[in-house]
């Protein structure tokens, strides 16, 4: 195996005076989809923010293609848990935001294409407050994909929408990721089924302080659907192992 797309080497993070992440080592390959699961408060958001360059690591390093990432980098893009759209910008302006601040031109029409793919064309001139939660997160996803990132970081992106919308969005994100062989993804979630549905590999983060307690590949072939998934022969054992690890992490913390 060559250099991984993204690597964390013994990353520890301290916020305030509290150790939040301890010696995290993790590799994400080219076009790999990695899910990080763990109970809330375990440091999942902190992990993503560290990878995104929003908070510095106390020790250790985050590497992109083997080179250290000192801060935010346009080759990574983040989808936020609570959407975090600009309320004063239209849907279109929100999606175009990353390209604009990075001074990049949209010659390929990425914004229009993503508005279409995410079924936002009709509301392109609306403001975020006029949209449902699911639509808002579509904008958040389109905004991240518009800059054509090599690594997509998603922080519990479906936790604030209803169950039906969540299934739709999961399928849409998977389809978009499958279509682009140059894109890796790290998705953080507390939903074990979501992790099994989406991931090539699932990582269990237990804490605080957060540390990786289990790493398992998901052997179920793609394309996956939430229904076919549950009837796959490997599913029950995989789910049981992940659940056990998450629970053990909780008890360890308590």
């Amino acid at each position, binding site marked *: 195996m060559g250099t991984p797309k993204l690597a964390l080497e013994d990353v520890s993070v301290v916020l305030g005076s509290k150790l939040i992440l301890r010696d995290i080592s993790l590799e994400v390959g080219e076009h790999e989809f990695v899910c990080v699961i763990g109970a809330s408060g375990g440091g999942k958001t902190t992990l993503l923010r560290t990878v995104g*360059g929003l908070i510095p690591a106390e020790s250790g390093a985050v590497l992109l293609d083997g080179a250290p990432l000192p801060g935010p980098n346009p080759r990574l*893009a983040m989808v936020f848990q609570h959407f975090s759209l600009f309320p004063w*910008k239209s849907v279109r302006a929100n999606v175009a935001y990353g390209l604009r601040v990075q001074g990049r031109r949209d010659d390929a029409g990425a914004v229009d294409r993503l508005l279409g793919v995410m079924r936002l064309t009709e509301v392109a001139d609306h403001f975020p407050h006029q949209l449902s939660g699911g639509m808002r997160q579509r904008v958040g996803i389109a905004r991240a994909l518009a800059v054509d990132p090599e690594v997509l970081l998603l922080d519990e992106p479906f936790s604030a929408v209803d169950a039906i919308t969540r299934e739709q969005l999961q399928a849409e994100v998977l389809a978009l990721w499958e279509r682009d062989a140059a894109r890796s993804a790290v998705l953080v979630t507390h939903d074990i089924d979501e992790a099994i549905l989406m991931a090539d590999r699932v990582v269990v983060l237990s804490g605080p302080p957060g540390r990786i307690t289990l790493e398992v590949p998901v052997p179920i072939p793609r394309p996956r659907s939430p229904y076919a998934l549950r009837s796959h022969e490997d599913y029950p054992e995989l789910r049981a192992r992940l659940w056990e690890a998450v629970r053990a992490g909780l008890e360890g913390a308590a």
Partner: protein
Amino acid sequence: MILRWLSVVVILLAWEVYGRSINPILLSYPSAIIESSLDMVIDGSLPKALRESLVVLGTGFLIGCVAGVVIGVLAGRRRALAALLDWPLNALYATPAVALIPVIVVWFGFGVTAKIVVVTLFVLFPVLINTMRGVQEVPRDLIEVARSFCSPERRMWGDLVLPSALPYIVTGLRLAIGRGLIGVIVAEFFTAFAGLGNLIVTNANNFRTARMFVPIVIIAVLGVATTALLEWLERRLFRWRRMDETP
């Protein structure tokens, strides 16, 4: 809208009926006020006073607003300045600005300058304090978005700081209009020999009650009109906001 106009009509009618029934020195009534205002336009006293007051109001308002926004933005972004300004600002804000007028007269005399200073002071604080708050209330999660998309610092001003502070600034302006109007009139009471405030005082002293009411009505109309203008501007500017979200 109909109800608003209805309330105006009812009040005017009641005033007319009641006003006619009592001594015209104590209270005047609408038709007499209109008549007086025509007289005052013809003899030139009203246009002159209005011009004088508007110059003071306009200049003071402009200086106060610009200074308020500039200082407010700086104080909102620089903790040190905010800490430095905190107590003096609160002390000045709590002091009735009227109390400062004699001091201002001592410093600046009885002329236009003193009056402009008074209006500026009246206007400055609501604008400054609201601007400062608005700049501090930039949502943290959006700052994070801007950073994660590698926004240069200077772009954050236009994308983030200004749009989120603007509603607060406009609220400050709305308060400032009312206070600015009070500022001019009170300043003209004290320093005088010019403006609408002076017109009120001299006519009151001469028991020309109808004439006294003319500048009062004009001030009221001025206040309502500028506030309406600002509200219209607000609706145009803040289409992105929910109706139930006002700072």
